[in-house]
């Protein structure tokens, strides 16, 4: 066989892409050989011993699935029916009228990211003039998702660095100023990266302005049950909007609350005004999913369906979730106590206690965050976000020293 001379490469012009800002942190952490190193980068839960955690109820479900010995046939494009039913009920409440009336289009998707991407593709196709409003700041991958889906976006004010709290007036003003019919991306609870959530009263006002401007509320729910420890409490904001009779998009993830990170399990839900609308919306979402991955993976969906479908396991899940959320709250308290005790400047660190969920916005800037890493071997993202899920009670004092040093002595 004659080998032909071929061009060396057609990809010579392909540049090296920068490392992912969030996942790149873990890679850098792994490379660090210092004993004191602390990984507060990715939002993945760790035990007090700083070990990854597979929920007992998940292990139980997987053993049960092995015993059942079900087949591995393709799921329908929209995913596992039992999972879709369970996930919508968890989110909206099983007795919610939107479920009883059949007004929710639900598709199993590849965790939060996949759900957001499907919704973005849908927006690009059916609302090509619309843009998405995202909080400033927001999870780093949100912008990538909308960029790749070719959906324009702009930011609404959210984080106020002066108070290390919510810039509520700015948020309302920016949502109000946006063109009618915009999609407003809201974090259902435990805002990522700040940990700062609106109060119930503020949520009502946010709903008011969204309703008045005929915007579409678009929730990203990655921490239901993980923020407060209660599934229902953490669904408050979503249910508030639904109760008003609004049409709503909700992206869900089971990465954190069931610890199913790598199984990529979540759902995109669209609450519609009528069941036949939900049918049509679902059919068009399927048309977008098919050329992306054909149908979603079964394993994670079956785990969720088994856990939620069995009252004992469901109860066990809720308990483990409370324990995870509880550990994070304890660590948050301890960090605050350490900071208050060690910092002689009189700075008020209580904003840390007002934040909720896996993350805390420390208020550190990029240079200070670099100092955390370079001097103290504390790995975090450059926006000053730390993952409390990666913090143990035992390390709180060390972390407090690092934060105090970085805050006061750098920049």
């Amino acid at each position, binding site marked *: 066989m004659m080998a032909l001379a071929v061009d060396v490469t057609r990809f010579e012009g392909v540049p090296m892409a920068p490392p992912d800002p969030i*996942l790149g942190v873990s890679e850098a952490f792994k490379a660090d050989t210092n004993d004191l190193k602390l990984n507060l980068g990715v939002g993945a839960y760790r035990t007090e011993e700083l070990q990854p955690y597979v929920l007992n109820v998940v292990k139980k479900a997987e053993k049960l699935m092995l015993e059942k010995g079900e087949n591995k046939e393709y799921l329908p494009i929209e995913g596992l029916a039992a999972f879709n039913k369970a996930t919508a009920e968890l989110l909206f409440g099983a007795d919610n009228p939107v479920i009883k009336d059949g007004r929710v289009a639900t598709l199993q998707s590849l965790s939060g990211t996949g759900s957001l991407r499907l919704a973005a593709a849908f927006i690009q*196709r059916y609302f090509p003039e619309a843009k998405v409003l995202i909080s400033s700041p927001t999870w780093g991958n949100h912008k990538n998702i909308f960029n790749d889906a070719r959906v324009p976006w702009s930011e609404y004010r959210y984080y106020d660095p002066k108070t290390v709290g919510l810039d509520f007036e700015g948020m309302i003003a920016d949502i109000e100023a946006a063109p009618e019919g915009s999609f407003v991306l809201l974090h259902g609870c435990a805002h990522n990266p700040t940990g700062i959530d609106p109060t119930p009263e503020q949520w009502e006002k946010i709903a008011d302005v969204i309703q008045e401007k005929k915007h579409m509320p678009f929730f990203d729910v990655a921490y239901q049950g993980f923020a407060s420890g209660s599934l229902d409490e953490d669904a408050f904001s979503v249910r508030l909007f639904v109760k008003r009779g609004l049409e709503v998009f909700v992206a869900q993830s089971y990465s954190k609350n069931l610890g199913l990170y790598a199984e990529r399990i979540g759902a995109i839900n669209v609450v519609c005004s009528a069941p036949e609308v939900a049918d049509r919306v679902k059919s068009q979402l399927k048309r977008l999913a098919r050329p992306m991955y054909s149908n979603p993976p079964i394993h994670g969906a079956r785990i969720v369906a088994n856990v939620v479908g069995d009252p004992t396991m469901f109860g066990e899940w809720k308990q483990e979730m409370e324990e995870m959320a509880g550990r994070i709250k304890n660590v948050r308290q301890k960090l605050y106590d350490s900071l208050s005790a060690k910092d002689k400047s009189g700075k008020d660190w209580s904003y840390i206690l007002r934040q909720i969920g896996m993350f805390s916005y420390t208020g550190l800037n990029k240079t200070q965050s670099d100092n955390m890493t370079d001097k103290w071997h504390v790995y975090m993202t450059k926006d000053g976000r730390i993952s409390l899920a990666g913090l143990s009670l035992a390390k709180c004092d060390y972390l407090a020293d690092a934060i105090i040093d970085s805050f006061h002595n750098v920049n």
Partner: protein
Amino acid sequence: MAPSHVQEPSADRRLSTLVRHLLPSSPRRTAAAAAEDSSATLESSPTMASQGCSVFAGLAQAPEDPILGVTVAFNKDPSPNKVNLGVGAYRTEEGKPLVLNVVRRAEQMLVNDPTRYKEYLPITGLADFNKLSAKLIFGADSPAIQENRVATVQCLSGTGSLRVGGEFLARHYHEHTIYIPQPTWGNHVKVFTLSGLTVKTYRYYDPATRGLDLKGFLEDLSSAPTGAIVLLHACAHNPTGVDPTIEEWEQIRQLMRSKSMLPFFDSAYQGFASGSLDKDAQSVRMFVADGGELLMAQSYAKNMGLYGERVGALSIVCGSADVAGRVESQLKLVTRPMISSPPLHGASIVATILKDSEMYHEWTVELKAMADRIISMRQQLFDALKARGTPGDWSHIIKQIGMFTFTGLNSEQVAFMRQEYHIYMTSDGRISMAGLNAKNVNQLADAIHAAVTQLK
């Protein structure tokens, strides 16, 4: 397109917003959306007054996916004699789905291993899985692997691998046209179109011979632009089952390389076509051996029976290790905003099997058994039609390769067989041999016979 009657002001405002979104003149409407929504009209519906209107009022109901829709229709059929020859999913002789023994074993090991976690995989996926997958398709001694010229990312089975590859090419390759065979798997067009590529076709299937139209194939590639992307089915062409011979592959390779065309292989049936993993990879390895670049979408849906686990990989064979590194970094930028990172379970099963020589061997035995059963069903169907004296030359049934047979039946005949005999297949006349067994092969032969003799 004015609303048919005026309602309260808020409904008006909603409708006018919606009209702006859906009017054909809107510059940002995509061609795809325009084509599909041409039948959508903007009318007030009974729901609007009572429940407030929907921003989705003008959204049309999408038709069922043509391939997966066959199973949907099949499931609805109450007949006890129904036969599903639609989706390409393997069935046992008893007509049941099959989970390979070696897969169950691997799963047991994984689930019972207390040291395993469910932490996010890296964006590129499970590293072991990626390396082993590249070795499987390119061969462990492949120069491309030894020279570190292969960038591999774990993807969602074949579909996901094709989509990621398409998106990558749309961003980083200078030619944005991909040539696909006529006919091809129904989902190819949509995958590449949504990736941002323009899709053109090359002649492939010759209905007169029910074989390969090599002349048309080579002519169409000759007149395609230099550097164009060309989709190639590595083996067991879907839907026709018609594969080039090794000599024909060599002609294709030479032509493509002389025009600097970029091969994009779709390998969904390695080991499943002939029963031999190496034999089914020959076409791919020929192209790698000449030192050129190519894309490879790999799926474990059929050959490891992992359909619903969505396991696959996209490999790009590059001109140098440095380029491969850069290509991999850019592939991550494609997948991160799509799925962040791929699912763990199925890839773990594959890696467990591929890295253990005893389990690997067990897999090859089970794989060959599946391939052999299908080859045997081909013979049984051919014999049954011969026994009935069904008019026509049916030898293509035993000449074609892989899971599918392109029967040559037209859509009218297909519909007839569905209505009268409860036989389900895609409207292009493609049947999945995997759905056949000794019990239903006669029913199928009867149905084909009736369709061919009663409808022309």
